């Protein structure tokens, strides 16, 4: 049984790390990071099998963060899980640091793939899932994509491939916060009817509240995977979730929380802690 209370605490710690990292690193994409915090908290806190002291353990579940601009969130959860020291998070985006704004694997155990250019993660996840099939391995492969990222044609090549090859060991989670770089997804390049698109490509689809830990857990749990189809979890989220003045505001795709904004954001998170 999943311990929702612990997962919520992990989410909160990740949010604080993310605010601290983007503040100290004067880096952007805090809205995109806060959007996925609950998803990665549940995956690393209750769904995925891994060994921080043996990052390349062959039977581990794999997560590819295709929306690499939310890398600070993944670094934070890897630190919370013991892959890297929590102290290291302070170096994020600093001169000479290997914790780049977009996720990078070099010298960072636990990062499966470096990303940053959108539309790269899912094809690689398909390759990993295919390798698991060839090698008759039971581990699972997760790919976390942004919704705006689904503009990229490479994803649709991979979506065709995954269903054709019956990669039921592959789970895609879409961070469906409805906002992309400038406008909403629907005003930019409409994705809806989004679930139907995935279904018509041969995938199982589940729509969930991407901030409800229980729903995330249930949707990503192993017994949800079909015998023949890959799974797409459309996680409906709020960009900037958890800091009220950042929520649903595209500005926070770019802006780094500094001074008063930083203070207010941390104050709001501290209150939730209390």
């Amino acid at each position, binding site marked *: 049984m999943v311990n929702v209370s612990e997962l919520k605490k992990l989410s909160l710690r990740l949010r604080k790390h993310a605010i601290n990292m983007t503040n100290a690193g004067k880096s952007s994409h805090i809205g995109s990071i806060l959007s996925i915090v609950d998803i990665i908290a549940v995956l690393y806190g209750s769904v995925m099998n891994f060994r921080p002291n043996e990052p390349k353990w062959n039977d581990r579940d794999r997560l590819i963060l295709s929306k690499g601009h939310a890398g600070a969130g993944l670094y934070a959860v890897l630190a919370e899980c013991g892959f890297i020291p929590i102290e290291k998070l302070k170096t994020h985006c600093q001169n000479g640091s290997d914790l780049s704004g977009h996720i990078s*694997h070099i010298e960072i155990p636990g990062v*499966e*793939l*470096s*990303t*940053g*250019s959108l*539309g*790269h993660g*899912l*094809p*690689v*996840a*398909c*390759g*990993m*899932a*295919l*390798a*698991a099939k*060839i*090698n008759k391995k039971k581990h699972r492969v997760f790919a976390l994509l942004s919704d705006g990222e689904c503009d990229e*044609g*490479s994803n649709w*090549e*991979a979506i*065709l*491939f995954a269903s*054709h*090859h019956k990669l039921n060991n592959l789970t895609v989670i879409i961070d469906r916060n409805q906002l992309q770089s400038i406008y909403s997804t629907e005003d930019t390049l409409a994705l809806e009817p989004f679930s139907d698109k995935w279904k018509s490509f041969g995938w199982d689809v589940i729509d969930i509240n991407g901030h409800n830990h229980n729903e995330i857990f249930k949707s990503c749990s192993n017994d949800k995977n079909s015998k023949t189809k890959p799974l797409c979890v459309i996680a409906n989220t709020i960009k900037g979730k958890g800091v009220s003045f950042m929520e649903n505001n595209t500005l926070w795709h770019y802006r780094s929380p500094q001074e008063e904004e930083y203070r207010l954001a941390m104050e709001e998170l501290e209150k939730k802690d209390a």
Partner: protein
Amino acid sequence: MRDNFLKSLTKLAESDKEIVLLTGDLGFGVFEKFEKNFSGQFFNVGVAEQNMIGLATGLALEGKKVVTYSIGNFGTLRCLEQIRNDACYHDLNITIVANGGGFSYGSLGMSHHTTEDLSIMRALPNISVVAPCTEHEASEATTAIITKRGVGYLRLDKDSAKDCFSNDPFVIGKSRRYKEGQDLTLIATGGILNEASVASEELKKLGIEVRLVGMHSIKPIDLDEIKDSVQNTGGIVTIEEHNKDGGLGSAISEVCMDLKMIPKKFLRIGLDNKFSSIVGSQQYLRSRYEIDNKAIVKKVLDLISN
């Protein structure tokens, strides 16, 4: 060259079950036997080159040695960022094979003229770039590049040098010297060594003795041979079925400048930085764009007399 590539690949795949061949829906009538004999080691991934390199990356991250196959520009330029960010940055065992170097598919039009690949691929970190010059070398290069750790680019031509043989071992990063001569060194990459070889015989008849080098590796490149050619021959002429900007000639001139060793004479024979809307056979286009043996002879004579 493609047949020899496949023979070598088949031999490797027999003893190494980690080898996986991906094709971007090309190779009709070519891969059927491989597919039949190597279940789980062959996938036609469809006309989807970006996904193909992503798949190769995922498979290679899991320990596979992946070979991707397509026609010239499709498997390289179409998915260049996947090659850069996914394959090369992660430094994986992936061999990218492009069939139809240069004007191999000359009549099919600009889309199929593979004339910028060498310069673009060699600009990437963590990659070896190899263009075999002879049929036998295509076999050797296939084995060498697949068994070498890291990302490799293998450019296969339709043409090949017919009368060039070497007993030297094939080593990525080394070249092969096929003829000795002191007046000049002709250095060619890929199948167009054939034109350079014919030209060298014509020049011999005219009393000009050239050293003939097949530079199958563009990256890493054979520094020793370039140094020796500068020091011990009358100059260097580079020959490539490729855009002059950034290709073999560029690479060799970079080496010369870096080493502060200036050849007494130097000429790049290759394609100007233009597209060809004109089509024709490989031989026709070589002649039209003055990179065939006759043009090489003429340009060498001009170089020597000036």
